[in-house]
Every structure is written in C-alpha cells, then in structure tokens.
C-alpha cells in the first residue's frame, strides 16, 4: 500500500518506516534470516540493551557476506563482530519532524558511495526506524510536481491579477532591459511591446541627459547591498513622467530574485499608473480657480478691464489694418505688432484673463520667430498670417465666463457693472474672512466702489423727470449739464436727501425758468439752462444746482414774512438779504398758497434742508434777480461708518492688544507697571525704536509706539528662538522685530475695529531708530501709556 498523496510540508515521520531492530549480542544468522525473509527491508537498527548503536543496511550486510569465507566467519558469531567490520560506514540520522523535501536534499548530498543508503529516523522516546531512500525520493518527486503545479497556478493567478489591475508592472535587472513578464497595461501606456527595451529610454525617449542619469541611478539601486543606501537613492527616481501625452506615475520596488544569501541578486519592479484623468481633474480645478481669480480681478480693476477690452477690440478691428497697410518697412511693422501684442498680454495678465493671455503669448512666440528670421515671410504672407488670426475668440471665451459668473446683465455694452447690494455684501463678507493683507484691502476698497454709486448716475434720473416737467409746463430747457468730479457715495445713506433734490429741480422749472416768451423779452435764449456741478473734497463733497431763471425776489419774501408772521417791516429791514433768503427753507414756505406769490422758490425746500441737516451737511442759496439761482449742498462723506472720534479709545484698543501680545511672550512676573495718563507736555521722550502710525477715522490720530533696546532684543530672541545673530546684522533684525511686533498688534487692533463695524485705517508703520530721542509735538491732546517690564519698557503715545 503506497501513499500517493503528499503535501509540501509533510515530514519523514509520516512516511512508511521500517521498524526492525536487533540486539548486537544476537547472532548474525538471525539478521541474515530477517533480510532473507523481509525482502523490502533496507536496513536494521542495531541496539545494545535497548540503546541505539547504529544501522546495518541490507547493502552493507550482503557486501560483507559476499566476501569469501564470510558466511563461515560471521554467521555463528554475534552481530557485534560483524558490525566491527562495517563501522567505517556513517549512517544519516534525521529527526522524524524533518520535512520530506529537506530530507531528500540532505540525503542526496551524501557521497556517491552511500548516496542510496537508508536513513535512520529518530523518533520520539529514543526509538529509531529506517527509511528507504527510494520511498523518500518518490515522496519528494510527488511533492515537487505538486509544488510546480501550484507555482504555475500562482504565476497565472498573479499575471491575471496584474493584467487586470490597470497598472503597468514590469521588471528590470541590472542591464535595465525590460523583462518578458510585464502586464498588459504597459502596452497601453507605451503603445508598443516593451520586452527587451532599454528602460531609461522608455521613460525619457528624448532626453539623453536624463537617460544617462536614470541609467546610473537604477544600476546603483539594483546593485546596492546596503538597505540604508538604497533608501537614500530610491526617492531620487522620477515619480511622474509624461508618455504619449499621458501622465504616468511611477513606483519602484526592489525585489530579490536569487534567494541564496551569498549570491543575493535583485531586480527592480516598476509600477506604472496612468493618472492622466486625475491630473485632468486637478487641472480643471485649477482652471476654475484661475477663472474665479479673473472675475475678482475684473471686479477689482473694472476700469482697467473696460479700457483694456476696448483698446484690444480697437486694435484687432481697426488699428491692426492700419499698421499692416502703412508704408513702413516690414521689420518695423512686425516690431510694432509685436509691441502691441506684448502690451495687451501684459494688460490682460493684470486682470488674469488667462485664455487671452495664453493666446497672445502664442502669437508673441510666432512673431518672435518671424522677427528673428527663423521663419521667413514677406509682407503679404505676414498680412495674411495676422489677418487670419481670430483675435476675438479667446477674448469671447473669457468674457463668456465672466458673464457666466457675474450674469450677462451685469456687463452690458461694457459700460456699467451692476451687482445687487446683497451680492456685494456677500462678496465683502467672504473677502473679510480671508487673511487681511494689501490685496484684500484693495479688493474691499473696490467693493466699496460698487456699494458706492457714482453721484452723477444718481442724479441723471432727475434730469429725465425735469425734462418731462418742463414740457408739461410749456417751458424750454437745454439738456441739463452735469460736470465736475466723479464722487462715489453709498446711495443708501443719501437716499432721502437725493429724493428731496427733486424739489430743487421742480422749483427751477416751476418758478426759476421763465416762459420762452418772457425769456426772449428779457433778452435771454428761449431755452433755459439748468446746471449741475459736483465737487469732491477730502471729507465732503458739494452738489451745486443752478438755473439761469428769474432768481428769487427778496422783496416778495419780505412781504410773505410780514403777512405770515406779522413782523413789522422795520424789523425785517434789520435782517440782511441772506437771512431773508434763508427763510425759504423754513416750513412756512412750503404751503401751496405762498408758492404762487414767490417768484422763484418755495415748495419742498424745507424738506431738502432738513435732509441735509440730518447728514450734518449744509445748504446755501445764492440768487440774482433775472440772472438765476444757485443751490450749494455740502455733505460729508463716509456717514456710514461709525465714528471713532476719540484718540483715547483707539489708544486703549491698541493697548489691549499690546498687553495681550506681551502677555503671551513675557513671564507674568515680568510685568511691573502699566500706566495710562493724559500727557500735557510738548516734548515726547522716545525709546530706541519708535514707530509713527497715522490712523484715519473721522479725524486723524497719530500713534507713536516706542520700545527700548532691551525689550526689542528680548523680542528678537523670542522670534528667532535664540538664534545667535551676528552683530553687523543685528540692527536689521531688531528693526524687523519692531515692525513684526507692531504689525501683529495693529493687525489685531484693525481686525477688532473692523469686526465691530468701525472703519479705521492705519498707515504702514515707519520705524525710526534713535538713542532715546526727544520728539516735540505742538500742544494737542495727548495720551501716554507705559508698560514697564523686567525685560524693558514700551511707551505708546496717542496724539490727536
């Protein structure tokens, strides 16, 4: 009964073993009869009082017995005698738990003379059995076959796995030629069968320098014996390459292919993954981000944007023809076009209109080739080259996107951009969430421009109203002229006032401008003139509305005052004309009855005045009989922002943040005195490093922050974490420390004002170094704050 089935990890203990032993004190005849009877027995275990002595193999026994006289010599004697004769033979003893495969390998390593000898198997409890070498080899061959089958299955399985993984797997040995076994995906990636191709050339087909580098480092990596060195070199291999316009990421794995410790050999497994789609997605995201940037830039630089587009359109629609048709030499023409294209590229770059910039960049490259005679063209060819370029396509692409984001209504005829107030507020909110810097500050200012309407645009609807009114009243007026500065105001805050202005226009038509016949009689043009003039000042602005009508009749006003208020003429005559004129803004004139009596003004002027006063503004009227009337409204700007008119308040805020700042840095027991006082002297004592900061709110405040040398040095150490600074550079670092400190403190302060709805603007700190200078300042309200610490002192002054 022979076993047919063996597993790879079966041991020799599981094989059929011969369990025959005999005491060496018995006679050789007994052994002889066993060998004769049990023809399969390969050997017998010899014992002496149950102790293992050795193995007597069948082969050896018959070898000795076949010699002349052996039978006579040994048969009747003890086995021991016989065994003495064969003792030069050493049997192989293996434990029963030895793997069949190992046992076979060990057995076959014996000398040729005894390679087929049976093996002694040492079982537990000192019992020994005999294993026939034939049986061992049969078992081994069955296991071997099984292993091969399994291996083949595994190879197929792994190959399937690799082929279907969507990744390219290939291996290279130190000759760097791709080995036959590689996954299908490699073919897709490279586009051809890569077996036996030189790997560095596959990766960098056109770059010999990189091929060279890759060759050297790959060989180094494959042959490197030390793991540490290997880890050093592996990260230097390229991680991503472009093959056939595909983005391929590469990973590397060094694998052993010769397991023998002494002749250890490695090859490199290369894993290629097509990440084109992933990159595309990332690019798409980047493009979208760029496009959003473009929109922000368009909003930020709206005037630039409009100008740029108009110029550009003008260029490709008209100017280009003109340049091409000029009598200039071709070289000059090329240069001029080049300059233009270059300028437009720069301009569009500023507003980040990416598509146009790319497009212009390509044209620029082309022109450069022509200019440097790398591409020869005559004037006609050059003309047709340029005229065949569609300059509008990329612009339209970018414009499409801008329209898409801002809505097509917002950019109409490239003249005005309109955003709903809530959209602007939303945008403003988003931007204030970003870390505040010069750019965000700039954007916020620009956003204010949107919130703030141009006053001219606010006034224009009134003109339409005035024309219609004039028509109804049978009066002729010329188009109302509006001149002066562009003033941006937050319409919401001036809404009521602006609505009241209608009274001024209405009065001009009703009572100022005469009938055409009367005007002709007075020698005036039959068309009356109404003018609107705007003047911009730092903190306020003026609206001047004038007409060339009949003016206000002071005498008639006096009559009304007498009649209405029963004031005697003698009293009235004590008042000057101006006082009398100003009574037109009183409520008493805003009744129907009086209107007809006053030649000129009356209705609603009081409401104008009250609106003006609500805004802390003023209104003045000037009038000359038969020449005309002029109203001047003067109004403050920025009435939206809450007023911070208190230098102490601002100083206190700064101090708060100053304190917080130093508390984080200095150990608490280092604080000595904190003191705030009104400061009445003109002379301000300064410490080593001082900074002057202007703060603009409704009034201007100057803050001086002064830090002494010791404290600054302490701060520098703190920032640089005890870096030793060379003394020549120290000064520069100390100054940087002061500005860093101030920027932190002021940044926090601005933020807190901003969060509370205050509008406050700090100038960039200017740093001054001096040895405890004295600064003289005219007598104004000053506050002084001192913070004394064990590390040094800091003084803050606020000056109104």
């Amino acid at each position: 009964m022979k076993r047919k089935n063996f597993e790879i990890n079966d041991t020799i203990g599981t094989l059929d073993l011969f369990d025959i032993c005999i005491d060496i004190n018995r006679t050789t005849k007994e052994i002889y009869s066993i060998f004769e009877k049990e023809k399969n027995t390969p050997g017998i275990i010899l014992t002496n009082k149950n102790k293992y002595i050795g193995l007597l193999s069948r082969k050896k026994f018959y070898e000795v017995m076949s010699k002349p006289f052996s039978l006579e010599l040994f048969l009747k004697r003890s086995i021991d005698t016989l065994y003495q004769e064969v003792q030069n033979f050493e049997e192989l003893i293996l434990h029963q738990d030895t793997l069949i495969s190992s046992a076979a390998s060990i057995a076959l390593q014996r000398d040729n003379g005894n390679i087929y000898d049976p093996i002694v198997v040492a079982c537990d409890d000192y019992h020994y059995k005999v294993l026939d070498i034939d049986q061992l080899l049969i078992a081994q061959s069955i296991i071997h076959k099984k292993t091969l089958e399994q291996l083949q299955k595994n190879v197929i399985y792994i190959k399937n796995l690799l082929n279907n993984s969507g990744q390219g797997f290939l291996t290279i040995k130190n000759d760097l030629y791709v080995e036959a076994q590689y996954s299908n995906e490699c073919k897709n990636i490279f586009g051809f069968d890569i077996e036996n191709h030189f790997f560095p050339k596959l990766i960098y087909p056109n770059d010999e320098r990189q091929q060279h580098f890759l060759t050297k480092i790959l060989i180094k990596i494959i042959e490197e014996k030390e793991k540490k060195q290997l880890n050093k070199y592996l990260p230097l291999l390229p991680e991503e390459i472009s093959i056939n316009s595909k983005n391929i990421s590469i990973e590397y794995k060094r694998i052993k292919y010769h397991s023998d410790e002494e002749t250890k050999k490695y090859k490199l497994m290369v894993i290629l993954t097509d990440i084109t789609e992933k990159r595309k997605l990332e690019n798409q995201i980047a493009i979208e981000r760029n496009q959003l940037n473009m929109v922000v830039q368009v909003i930020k630089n709206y005037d630039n944007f409009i100008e740029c587009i108009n110029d550009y359109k003008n260029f490709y629609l008209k100017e280009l023809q003109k340049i091409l048709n000029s009598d200039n030499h071709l070289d000059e023409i090329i240069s001029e076009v080049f300059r233009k294209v270059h300028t437009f590229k720069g301009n569009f770059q500023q507003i980040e209109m990416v598509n146009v910039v790319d497009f212009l960049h390509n044209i620029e490259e082309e022109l450069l080739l022509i200019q440097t005679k790398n591409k020869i063209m005559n004037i006609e060819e050059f003309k047709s080259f340029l005229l065949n370029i569609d300059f509008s396509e990329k612009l339209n692409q970018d414009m499409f996107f801008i329209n898409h984001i801002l809505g097509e209504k917002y950019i109409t005829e490239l003249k005005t951009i309109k955003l709903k107030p809530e959209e602007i507020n939303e945008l403003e909110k988003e931007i204030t969430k970003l870390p505040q810097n010069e750019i965000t500050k700039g954007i916020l200012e620009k956003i204010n421009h949107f919130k703030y309407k141009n006053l001219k645009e606010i006034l224009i609807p009134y003109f339409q109203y005035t024309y219609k009114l004039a028509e109804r009243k049978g009066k002729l007026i010329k188009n109302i002229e509006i001149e002066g500065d562009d003033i941006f105001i937050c319409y919401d805050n001036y809404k009521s006032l602006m609505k009241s202005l209608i009274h001024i226009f209405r009065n001009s038509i009703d009572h100022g401008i005469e009938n055409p016949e009367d005007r002709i009689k007075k020698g005036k043009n039959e068309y009356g003139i109404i003018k609107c003039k705007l003047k911009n000042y730092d903190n306020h602005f003026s609206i001047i509305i004038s007409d060339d009508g009949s003016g206000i009749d002071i005498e008639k006003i006096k009559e009304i005052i007498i009649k209405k208020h029963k004031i005697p003429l003698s009293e009235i005559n004590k008042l000057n004309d101006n006082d009398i004129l100003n009574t037109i803004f009183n409520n008493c004139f805003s009744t129907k009855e009086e209107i007809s009596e006053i030649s000129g003004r009356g209705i609603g002027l009081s409401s104008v005045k009250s609106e003006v006063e609500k805004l802390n503004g003023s209104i003045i009227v000037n009038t000359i009989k038969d020449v005309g009337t002029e109203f001047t409204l003067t109004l403050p700007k920025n009435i939206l922002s809450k007023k911070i008119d208190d230098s102490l308040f601002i100083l206190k805020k700064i101090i708060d943040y100053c304190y917080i700042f130093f508390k984080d840095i200095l150990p608490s027991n280092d604080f000595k005195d904190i003191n705030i006082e009104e400061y009445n002297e003109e002379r301000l004592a300064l410490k080593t490093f001082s900074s002057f900061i202007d703060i603009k709110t409704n009034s201007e405040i100057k803050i001086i922050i002064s830090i002494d040398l010791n404290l600054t040095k302490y701060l520098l150490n703190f920032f640089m974490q005890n870096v030793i600074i060379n003394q020549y550079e120290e000064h520069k670092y100390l100054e940087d420390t002061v500005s860093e400190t101030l920027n932190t403190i002021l940044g926090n302060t601005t933020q807190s004002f901003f969060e509370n709805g205050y509008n406050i603007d700090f100038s960039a700190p200017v740093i001054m170094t001096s040895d405890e200078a004295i600064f003289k300042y005219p007598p104004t309200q000053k506050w002084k704050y001192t913070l004394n610490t064990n590390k040094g002192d800091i003084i803050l002054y606020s000056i109104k």
Partner: protein
Amino acid sequence: MANVLVVDDSIMIRKLIKTILENENHKVIAEASDGEEAYNMYTKFNPDLVTMDVSMPNVNGILAVKKIINNYPEANIIMVSAISQRDMVFEALESGAKHYIIKPITREKIISVINEVLCPIE
C-alpha cells in the same frame, strides 16, 4: 553637538537652517554663499558637517562637493536641493556627499538626515 558649515546663496535659507540646527544644539561655525567660499570656509574651520545648496552662483554645490571631498574625503556633506534637481543630487552623492534634503526644508527632515549622517546605526 556638531560644528556645521551652512552653504546657501539665500540668506533666508541660511538663517532657517541655522535656526533649526541651533535649536538642536548644533553650532553653525560658518556660512558661505557660494561654492568657492564654501571650500575656503571648510579649509579654515574644518566643520563636522556641511549643508550645501545644489545651485549657487559661480561655483555650484556639486563642484564644491567634489573639491571638498577631493581634499577631505571624510567630509560629511548634506545636499539641499529642490526636487527638480534630482540628477544633480545623485551626482553629488556619487561625488561623495553623504545625504540630501529635498526642499521645502523642515525641522524633521534636517534632524533625521543629520542623525543618519552623524550617528549611523548599522
């Protein structure tokens, strides 16, 4: 604690490396802003370790490594490089540089590379 020569044409990078090293109780005994100066400083101060920028004006980091190693084969030089310069880093390693740091420089990278170079555990 090692005496270190920091070579980089950017004062900012030098400062950064210096700060990190000194926080680790190493001492920056000299700085150089190009390869030529680096060699001279090496000769003068014989530092335990050099951090060497790969690309610098005049004499670049590779040449500096070659020159230093040529005269002081035992020198411990660590290259500082951008990822795009891998071939140059490789060349520097082949020329005898002990290790490298790929920018951006971080405390962790510097510490691990320096430890590997100065206290190799086999």
